[in-house]
């Protein structure tokens, strides 16, 4: 696991995801960018956090991808490094998907995972 971290310590967006996020933030009327994080919970141990950002702390790391700011707290970064956030459509459903190289296995639903 540690190898992936040293290889690539950034978090990125796919172009499609960035386009949708810019659009959502514009419609929402406010927001610095988007926060990606992990926390412990769920059926496989970890769960993703995906939120709008109105305030960031000094500790937060900020990446930028296609003009969208991505905020990650330092504790989450090891679990997310190298992740690309994508926006996908599956039938009628649409939403964001984490392409995370750190994940060993995830629960069937993909809402929680293990590293």
């Amino acid at each position, binding site marked *: 696991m540690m190898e992936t971290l040293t290889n690539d310590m950034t978090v990125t967006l796919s172009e499609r995801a960035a386009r949708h996020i810019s659009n959502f933030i514009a419609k929402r009327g406010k927001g610095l960018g988007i926060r990606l994080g992990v926390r412990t919970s769920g059926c496989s141990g970890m769960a993703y956090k995906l939120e709008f950002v109105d305030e960031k702390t000094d500790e937060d790391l900020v990446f930028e991808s296609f003009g969208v700011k991505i905020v990650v707290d330092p504790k989450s970064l090891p679990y997310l490094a190298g992740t690309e956030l994508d926006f996908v459509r599956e039938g*009628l459903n649409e939403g964001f998907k984490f392409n995370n190289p750190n994940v060993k296995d995830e629960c069937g639903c993909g809402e929680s995972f293990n590293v």
Partner: protein
Amino acid sequence: MALLQIAEPGMSAEPHKQRLAAGIDLGTTNSLVATVRNGIAVCLPDESGRAMLPSVVHYRLDGGVEVGMPAMRAHTTDPKNTILSVKRFMGRGLKDVAHVETMPYDFADTDGMVRLRTVQGIRSPVEISAEVLKVLGARARASLGGELAGVVITVPAYFDDAQRQATKDAARLAGLEVLRLLNEPTAAAVAYGLDNGAEGVYAVYDLGGGTFDLSILKLSRGIFEVMATNGDSALGGDDFDHRLFCWILDRANIDPPSSEDARRLLMKAREAKELLTAADEAPIRLTLSSAEEVNLTIDRETFAQLTEHLVRKTLAPMRKVLRDAGLAPEDVKGVVMVGGATRMPHIQRSVAAFFGQEPLTNLDPDKVVALGAALQANVLAGNRKDDDEWLLLDVIPLSLGLETMGGLVEKVIPRNSTLPIARAQEFTTYKDGQTAMAFHVIQGERELVADCRSLARFELRGIPPMAAGAARIRVAFQVDADGLLSVSAREMSSCVEASVAVKPSYGLSDDEIASMLKEGMRHAGEDMAARALAEQRVEAMRLVEATAAALETDGGLLSAGERKSIEATMAALRKLCAGSDHRAIKQAVTALSRETDDFAARRMDHGIRTALAGQKVDEIQI
């Protein structure tokens, strides 16, 4: 694999605990479902990208059920089993439904709500609406990737208890949990975020396919109150299409066209109308079945002139609704446009001219109600942090009260109270030794029982005999979150109790509800006079009866002259009671009570002397 949505800061849901919620606009002509995704309310389209689902249900001979576009196609081939606009039947009895004879349906002869005989058996409007809701529910589940925590469904502001209950029953039948029913104009206002804005009065102009509704909403402390509603249940965008269709027939010199040609020409008329929203002119080209060519062009100005009378028809209800609410056009802070027909530029112009301001049009008028419902559903499902800024918006459409002496209505729960609600009021006995009391539960805005609607009657028996006015009877009204009323009465000293649960009524039509509301406002002045008269009569009769009883028992305390004078005043009062001058009655009541003051004092002295006679001082308890 679940796809994630962006949450508000700090509001990321636990895995598998995301509360999916949707808002449903269950319309007469079309229905929509919407949700809040990534912080934005959006309507959910079907597989072919269409958000609007025609509210049409077709019961097929082979046992299948079709909803929406496929059902629409069956309308011409199998009208008896294809139900359009079922919303008109929700919570209605057969006698409430207008123009039954012109409908292609086979109505079953039943009590209560109307029922339709179809190839698949007898179906109630609740079951038919449930078919539409099932499709929307399935679409929401597929789009959100999970089970729904609940839905908010919109209903017209004038819907009564029975219609609201029927809507809830339909949702339950469709397997949907109803978080709340929301008034359509309120939903539209919520979609525009007016609930977060300044307090004030807003107008909602809703011109749908076949109905026109105008509502005046008042926002105060985050709650929308429906102040007045008006409209025309036979005016809508379809009338504009039809007017243009007639113009085409006239211009192209077409003799009565075949029904197939008529259908196609009507489609062309609708297309042209829609084109004129953005373009200055629209072509109308069609080859008829007779190989005849129709080749016309209509410009915006001509179309506006053709349909001017229809636009004017919406202005009369606007003036009326404002008068009902006691407002002038300039008191209105904002105007919300709802319904696809409000896209027509000349409608927007005349609404702007009427209110002296540009109406709000930046949201899609077809979707605005569903979007507002989705926002409300999102809050009720617990997906927003600042829940407390949002208040409950479900309200009672008509006041609930009790009949009191003289045929007056004592309102216990006023109209527009938010649900659920409980209110209690104390009443007392009218006569000495009265051991029973009859309660008559009333719904309506007028002051007299005769002008309101009777909901239920019940009796409280076993009240211990007491002097008039001594018993304390507490009557509690309770309306639960489902809009169902129960009333209980309890005598406080003996705790005897009686209660009644009021079942939803099926007797009131939309027009009746709307007209009851209007009547209440229009007759406010004469109602107050009628109320004053009835109150004075009750007061007068009470005094006359009490005086007569006193003369009977203690007449000996008076001289013959005094007695005669009191009797004369009583007779005069009785006579005035038969008339309708409440001020004269009041004066006579005052005169009689002044005249009997001295008599009353003497009776009291006499009473005390009798009570004290033959008793020792230490036996007297005060």
